[in-house]
């Protein structure tokens, strides 16, 4: 496996050459600054780009062309990356060694077109496609309560501020999107493509120079290459008395989310100690929360902790019976206290380290993971895989206990099922 970096005019190309896979993985990323107003555009943008094309009139024609290229699978999303947002296209297709010569180039051409050459009429996205997609998206938001887990997640984001600004409430977001038109969305797209910075990753059994020549001709991008972009959003304060939000719903189950903030983390803590902390507390079936809340008290089927490491925060999710909320919440607090005291089995501490080392080894087994790992090295300056292993080996139990003292419950959200 070898890595190649190229600076081409106004974008960076990163090629991972490896003969392990039968497919070629392609990831195109336009990074731009996160802002409150973006939210009304981003979901719409990926929908419109996926549903229209400058070369084909209908979705069926797009799909038929795709099938003629042996059906590359692709998706476009805008992902959250701390203080940055990333408009990203990821795709995977069979290497031409398994199909027909010339297919790799054709796939790159088609996929790049989807992102960089959308259908535009009179300075606006295709009105028809736009209006339908807007209505579908709005209806999705309007009916979000039908999907309790998504709704609870969205409500916690509203109640617990981790960004520099307060995000739209669901109702505000709906009324903001209602005001967006096809021209406004295209203006937003142009702005990103003008101000953003572009990084492209290709992974597979390919000739790096050939890829370089091919993509430098295909890619039409007007943004600039930037030197250093900071993604981390630090948390400066938290609710000393956690904010409690309980909302009734006509559901069978109650969805609990405990939102935590971490203050004053060092880079070492964020990248390594925090990983261990969250896995010991709420990673696998062996974790403290799983063992206590699920296995010993039969209170839930799922309970787990998720790090939002670019935001120095963490969420604990559980599905419980509404009348067991107090009991569950007390147990969660108790387990978090145990983390501070170092009252967890050494075997668990060593076990999650093993899982971490294993996850490093596993990266090379999947193109998605390889590109993901390499992307985080480029974007948020993660250590390389060898350094990651060495640094993780250094983490001590005391490090985890010290970090535990920096974890503060900020907001508790319960969507209380009353059916």
């Amino acid at each position, binding site marked *: 496996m070898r890595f190649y970096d190229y600076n081409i005019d106004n974008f960076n190309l990163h090629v991972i050459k490896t003969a*392990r*896979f*039968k*497919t070629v993985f392609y990831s195109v990323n336009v990074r731009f600054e996160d802002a409150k107003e973006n939210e009304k555009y981003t979901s719409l943008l990926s929908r419109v780009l996926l*549903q229209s094309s400058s070369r084909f009139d*209908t*979705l*069926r024609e797009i*799909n*038929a062309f795709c*099938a*003629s290229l*042996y*059906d590359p*699978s692709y998706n476009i999303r805008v992902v959250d990356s701390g203080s940055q947002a990333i408009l990203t296209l990821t795709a*995977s297709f*069979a290497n031409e060694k*398994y*199909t027909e010569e010339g297919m790799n180039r054709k796939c790159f051409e088609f996929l790049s077109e989807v992102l960089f050459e959308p259908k535009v009429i009179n300075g606006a996205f295709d009105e028809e496609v736009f*209006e*339908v997609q807007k*209505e*579908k998206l709005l*209806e999705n938001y*309007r*009916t979000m*309560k*039908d*999907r*309790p887990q998504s709704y609870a997640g969205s409500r916690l984001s509203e109640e617990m501020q981790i960004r520099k600004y307060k995000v739209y409430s669901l109702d505000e977001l709906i009324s903001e999107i209602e005001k967006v038109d096809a021209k406004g969305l295209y203006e937003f797209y142009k702005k990103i493509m003008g101000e953003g910075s572009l990084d492209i990753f290709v992974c597979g059994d390919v000739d790096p120079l050939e890829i370089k020549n091919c993509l430098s001709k295909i890619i039409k991008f007007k943004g600039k290459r930037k030197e250093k972009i900071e993604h981390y959003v630090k948390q400066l304060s938290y609710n000393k008395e956690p904010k409690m939000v309980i909302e009734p719903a*006509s*559901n*069978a*189950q109650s969805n609990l989310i405990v939102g935590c903030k971490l203050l004053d983390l060092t880079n070492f803590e964020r990248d390594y100690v925090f990983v261990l902390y969250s896995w010991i507390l709420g990673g*696998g*079936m*062996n974790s403290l929360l799983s063992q206590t809340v*699920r*296995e010993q008290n*039969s*209170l*839930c*089927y*799922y309970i787990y902790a998720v790090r939002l490491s670019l935001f120095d925060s963490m969420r604990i999710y559980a*599905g*419980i*019976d509404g009348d067991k909320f107090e009991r569950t919440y007390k147990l969660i607090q108790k387990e978090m206290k145990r983390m501070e005291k170092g009252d967890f089995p050494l*075997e668990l501490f*060593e*076990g*999650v380290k*093993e*899982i*971490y080392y*294993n996850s490093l*080894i*596993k990266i*090379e*087994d*999947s193109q998605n993971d390889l590109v993901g790992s390499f992307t985080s090295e480029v974007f948020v300056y993660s250590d390389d895989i060898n350094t990651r292993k060495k640094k993780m080996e250094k983490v001590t139990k005391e490090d985890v206990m010290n970090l535990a003292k920096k974890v503060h419950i900020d907001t508790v959200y319960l969507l209380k099922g009353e059916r």
Partner: protein
Amino acid sequence: MEKKNYEGLDLDVYEEVLDNGLRIYISPIERHTIHARITTFFGGSTLEFKLDGDSSFIKVPGGVAHFLEHKMFEKEDGNDPLAVYENNGASGNAFTNEFVTAYHFTGAGHFYENLETLLKAVHEPYFTDENVLKEKGIISQEKKQDLDNPFSIVYERCLVNTFFFFFFKNTVLGSLDDINSITKEDLYNCYNTFYHPSNMILTVSGDVNPKEVIDFVKKFYKDYDFKKRPKIIVKEKKEPLTVVKEKDIIHMDNLSKEVMISYKIKRPTYVKDEYLNRIYFSFLLDLKFGAISKIVDVFANDANLISPVSSYLEPVGDYYMIIFNATVKDDADSFINLVDKTMKEDEYSLDSFNLIKKAILNSIILSTENASGICSMIANQVYFYGAPIYDMHDKLKNLDFETFKKATSGADLSNRSVVVLESED
């Protein structure tokens, strides 16, 4: 040990059958990790069974296969197999579907320790009244997640409204009442019947040495006394062509409408090869509703459809069940009628047929890219067709348009059941 090969896919498989009946399939690929999976042919839709020669059938409540899966992680010495995997840096899990229950792990090191743990996990049951009771709380919460999920609600009702007798009509989790009625005796009855090596297969893929694995597994079973025994008889019931109920409305406090349509179709017999029979039938769905069908633009431009339209083909006994699902804003009928009209059209284009063929050939290349995908593919083929389809690439390359038309032309699409979930006002 016999070496076989998936032709056209660069994929070798080493096969072995042990004296106790366990079938082993090992497929080395160039990866750092290994995925190992043991599958028992016992899933959520097996509720009445016996060993050949026994006088009466054993009846168990719905959800028992899944309940059993949970309880297999409980051990007398308190050592949870998942904890062993985790301490070795690997990750393990299990799943139950309508047909099988499978236990698996993926990891880079400590492979034989993990493999031993996996095999012990499925051969050393420890059920007590107390630990069965404890699990009821956990599984009830798992079920309640489904009770808040519009898709699961309409799916569950749809099964009941489509089939009179097939056990397939029971969901894998069972109802809350089923879950609460399960006893440790039920679990032992199922365990003793279905967790015999002769009803199981072991699949392994990744950075693995086939001979070593087979030797290890043989040695492992020396400590167990699995005798040859009569075959398992699962009670089969004759299922009528018609559905139980053609239309059903569920009233719940929902903002959108959730629609499910199921077609119950007696399996056409023109194509005798079961694998090809299913593939040809799935082409029917691809041509009518897939990415390059005419209807894809109709769906895309219909603002009444909030979600994408999904469709599935399920083999159920000697039937195919075709299911459509979508979330709609307010007009359920227009969606139902559109699907029905499209189902009943029978004009197909050769060009589209060939494009879909191309896409399917690509998809099977992708499915051999990871170790767990390979284990799934082999286990599915052994379950449904009795053996891996080593010539599948060739079979797919030779799919033929005229055969397709004959294979699907006799299908009776008149037996349909529709469920709509909506609010009362």
